[in-house]
């Protein structure tokens, strides 16, 4: 199964030539309390949220970015961490996902140990290997409380061919900027080229490969950590 990036057309019902802007749909998963909401908020709103609460079900945030002159909508689907929400509730949101962001809390070893279960969840939702995945260790501003070393995390990331980013949604100055992390994903997605119209007219179902990707070329660069 090929991953598909979507094109949306402009407002339905207008006769103007469609304003196509691509949509990258990214799902953010990980244990409860690791900071998924803060990360997505930080990226979309540009600041650390005042107060975040437990996410119930799925929250949605969006940001329009520009890469090489192309405007792209990045949609972040921020999911509840508690396990009971996953089984019957969240699967709807795995559909047509273009990338996955796994989040753990560097000050919480249990959240790191849960990662295999999250990877397994993705597998169960039939996300193909070609769907980019990244690993984010959050809260690394809390230096004194770190329980998961960069080494350990890096090994894990390598073994799953994911890049690792350590950051702090709260204070990202010394680390990977949250913005840069999501931009990296967006660049990666942009370089993957099989495209599909998001709402093909009747009878035009199916993918329309527009350009063969340089995916092989890039895979090496992708697999190493930044």
């Amino acid at each position, binding site marked *: 199964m090929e991953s598909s990036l979507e094109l*949306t057309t402009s*407002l*339905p019902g207008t006769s103007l030539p469609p304003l196509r802007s691509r*949509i990258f*749909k990214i799902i953010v998963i990980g244990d*409860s*309390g690791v900071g998924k909401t803060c990360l997505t908020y930080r990226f979309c709103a540009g600041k650390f949220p005042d*107060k*975040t*609460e*437990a*996410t*119930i*079900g*799925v*929250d*949605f945030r*969006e940001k329009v970015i520009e890469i090489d002159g192309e405007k792209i909508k990045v*949609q972040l689907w921020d999911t*509840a*961490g*508690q396990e*009971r*929400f996953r*089984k*019957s*509730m*969240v699967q*709807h*949101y795995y559909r047509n996902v273009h990338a996955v962001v796994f989040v753990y809390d560097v000050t919480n070893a249990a959240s790191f140990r849960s990662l295999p279960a999250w990877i397994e969840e993705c597998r169960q939702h039939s996300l193909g290997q070609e769907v980019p995945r990244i690993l984010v260790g959050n809260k690394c501003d809390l230096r004194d409380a770190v329980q998961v070393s960069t080494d350990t995390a890096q090994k894990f990331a390598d073994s799953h061919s994911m890049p690792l980013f350590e950051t702090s949604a709260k204070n990202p100055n010394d680390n990977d900027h949250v913005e840069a992390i999501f931009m990296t994903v967006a660049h990666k997605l942009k370089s993957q080229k099989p495209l599909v119209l*998001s*709402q093909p007219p009747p009878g035009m179902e199916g993918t329309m490969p527009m350009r063969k990707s340089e995916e092989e070329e890039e895979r090496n660069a992708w697999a190493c950590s930044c």
Partner: protein
Amino acid sequence: MYLKKSKSVGASSPLNGIGKQDWDARRKRKVGEITQALSVTPVDVAALRRMAISEGGLLTDEIRCRVWPKLLNVNTDNLPEKPAEDIRENHKDYHQVLLDVRRSLRRFPPGMPDEQREGLQEELIDIILYVLDRNPQLHYYQGYHDIVVTFLLVLGERLATVLVEKLSTHHLRDFMDPTMDNTKHILNYLMPIIERVNPEVHDFMQQAEVGTIFALSWLITWFGHVLSDFRHVVRLYDFFLACHPLMPIYFAAVIVLHREEEVLDCECDMASVHHLLSQIPQDLPYETLISRAGDLFVQFPPSELAREAAQQHSQQTAASTFKDFELASAQQRPDSVLRRRRKDQAMAAQAQAQSQSQAMVAVRPRAKRLVRLAVMGLTVALGAAALAVVNTALEWAPKLDLQLFP
């Protein structure tokens, strides 16, 4: 008079300052009626339910402290002692509860001193763990704390503890199963309600494949998670406590329907529609919506929603609606009620397969709507009575008939 009042709410809610004097007078009268209902022996629970549903709800937290226990049929004479400390460390959900309560800052009144808030948060943890510990069949879910905090802030710790326990084993029971399958099942009633009232909105949402998760937090927190004004939250709790356990899903449908224009103007894709709907407006006309939700409950009772194939009896009124209440009161598990009803209905539907049933009218004639509204007052109160399990339907009905339209 009841009808007239309901009708006027849509145009100008007295709560918004128009006709303030009039509202003050009615408010005073309502306080009097509530006091009267509380003072008789046995307490007039049916009247209290009507007060909780009707315009303005129970008005003050002071009144809520006295009436909510009656609505839940809770005896407040022997309140439990404060739970022992060791519940905390030993409970499997302790960490999740702690995590959720510690970050639930927004549920507390702005301006409350940190120290006081922190004390309440500790009490909140205690209540939740106390109830979970005593009822091992109940499972904590994120959002449960949003409900409990409302009871804590209105009632204080000891009273909140007993009421929350009762609520958890009844209204919230389905949400607290080991899995959320039953919760999902209840959410599945959202779209059929919307379809009956506005097929266009329904079709649009189906086409967008928006799903129903946008309403999940509404349902399982009784809107406590999404409404920032505490007064609105408690007003809704008055309503829900007085009604059938499935009323929150009707209220969710009413909110979507209230925003029909926005929905139809939205881009027809999952993300846009989910985003729009999950951002709940904070200035909803609550009294109007409450009245509409009750109206829809009567027009499309759960049993009818379950019966998708054929609506053989268009005359769904108090009697058959009452069946739902009766079942619900017997089991207090809305989901199992729905399932059982659906099974019954499926069989009935098969038998009547040939009877033509294009009858589902999207827009009912005005006059009929008003009649329905009148019935609503009756049936909602009836259902409430059934929940209280005090008397049989026949004994309640005549009494209500007299009292409903003062």
